[in-house]
């Protein structure tokens, strides 16, 4: 049965339902309901909750928990995720699965606590060192958030990589009816990598990211690249309402995709044939959604609560095939559907 759930609480409940056994975190608005929920419920479900002394400590506890073979999770918000990035790079190199939830607020710097999407680059490019990627899921409803959190754990274990779920502060704070629908759990053979004791097995598992031999380190980078290739092949998710005959395509993710949905309805009512593409995975990015647009499409408009980040991926995907426009608001200001409509009308007018 669906109950009214706050985004942050729903994500936490879904993680516990998915069998998450340890949560390590450090408080920061607007995601505090996650550690608050976990502090009460983790113990009840036989798991571990630790409020670490810092974000850096928390992400390294994740490294330890994952190395021991546990399903582990941390959560934070923008400046807190920034502090975790060194740890994320290490987790990638050591091939350790975990879930990192990022509830984005305004930056740069300490910024503000209001909703934002200015950490698209932070999630998809990362600030850690080295050639790495992390799968990034961006739900736009609370139901979808509960589904994707469970999926994220599976994907993390299947490919042995950290996985991120990013939400804007709006989704973390809002309430919507949702029901946690358990999905089958990936059968994770932790004996392959975890430092869980040698009994019944020959040879030790060593979890490490240091590799001082050039040829060996290159091999390890190539292996990682193979993993990323598989993820790109198998894990892209998006939604598209684009139809043959549409002239304008709006691209948006997270809660702003719902605002864009209102704008698309209004534009259609005004006779401007418009479709919406909503990336669900930000990495791997749904290039094909843009590359396979019908020839009727003349313009693409990307709307984000940032100065323009996903717009770069749209341009890369289209590779100059179509003009790509941008509309964004920042600082915690959230665009109205009317603002998107106005921008779209300006583009449609300019094209005639």
């Amino acid at each position: 049965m669906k109950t009214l759930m706050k985004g942050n609480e729903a994500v936490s409940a879904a993680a516990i339902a998915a069998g998450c056994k340890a949560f390590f975190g450090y408080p920061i608005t607007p995601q505090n309901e996650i550690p608050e929920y976990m502090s009460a419920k983790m113990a009840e479900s036989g798991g571990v909750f630790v409020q670490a002394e810092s974000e850096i400590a928390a992400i390294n506890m994740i490294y330890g928990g994952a190395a021991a073979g546990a399903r582990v999770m941390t959560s934070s918000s923008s400046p807190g995720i920034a502090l975790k990035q060194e740890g994320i790079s290490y987790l990638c190199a050591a091939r350790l699965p975990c879930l990192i939830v990022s509830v984005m607020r305004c930056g740069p710097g300490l910024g503000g606590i209001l909703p934002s999407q200015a950490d698209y680059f932070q999630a998809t490019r990362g600030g850690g060192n080295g050639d790495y990627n992390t799968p990034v899921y961006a739900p736009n409803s609370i139901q979808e958030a509960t589904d994707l959190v469970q999926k994220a754990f599976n994907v993390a274990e299947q490919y042995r990589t950290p996985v991120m779920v990013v939400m804007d502060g709006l989704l973390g704070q809002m309430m919507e009816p949702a029901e946690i629908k358990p999905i089958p759990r990936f059968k994770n053979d932790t004996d392959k990598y975890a430092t869980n004791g040698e009994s019944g097995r020959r040879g030790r598992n060593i979890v490490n990211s240091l590799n001082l031999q050039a040829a060996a380190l290159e091999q390890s980078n190539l292996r990682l690249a193979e993993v990323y290739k598989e993820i790109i092949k198998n894990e892209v998710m998006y939604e598209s309402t684009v139809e043959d005959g549409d002239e304008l395509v709006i691209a948006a993710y997270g809660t702003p995709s719902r605002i864009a949905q209102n704008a698309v309805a209004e534009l259609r009512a005004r006779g401007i044939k418009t479709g919406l593409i909503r990336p669900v995975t930000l990495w791997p990015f749904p290039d094909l959604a843009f590359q396979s647009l019908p020839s009727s499409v003349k313009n693409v408009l990307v709307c984000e609560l940032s100065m323009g980040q996903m717009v770069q991926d749209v341009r890369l995907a289209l590779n100059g095939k179509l003009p790509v426009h941008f509309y964004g608001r920042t600082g915690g200001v959230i665009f109205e559907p009317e603002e998107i409509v106005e921008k779209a009308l300006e583009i449609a007018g300019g094209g005639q």
Partner: protein
Amino acid sequence: MNERILIAGFGGQGALTAGQLIASLYLNRGVNVTWMPSYGAEMRGGTANCSVIASDGVIGSPIVSANAGIVMALNSPSLDKFEPVAAPGGTVILNTSIVTRGLKRGDVKSIKIDASNIAVNELKNIKVANMVMLGAYLTLHPEFTDDEIERVLNDRFGAKAAALIPLNMKAIASGKANAAR
């Protein structure tokens, strides 16, 4: 149906709770709902508001920043700020105990309710002023039965506050009885 509600007041007046209860009433009828709080450096005595949308269709933006069918103003600053958000033909519900002015607009209706005074004088608990306001709102929706209302109160407040349910039901009834159109 597509009900768009904005509820605003001082932090601590219970605007957010009233919004959650309304959202739950619709949810229990199988309607899609969203509840979105303003959040920021909120504090007791500061301002707080929430958007509630209930719709048969898919809900896009969860923010009610225009075209509100209902605006509930628990205090004067909320009326100043959100009267313009009401849709033409919409209804503004005023807590006349502390909202001293009437509406500036001629194209919206009003429901007046002496919510804070009723809570203090009649119910001896200022905390239920939001429930009196909720009662005034429910005069627009007589389809919700007392059983449905009691159910959402029970779900929201749980066993530890069970003793307070009758007081809340009384406050809602009083809001229904005293709402003046």
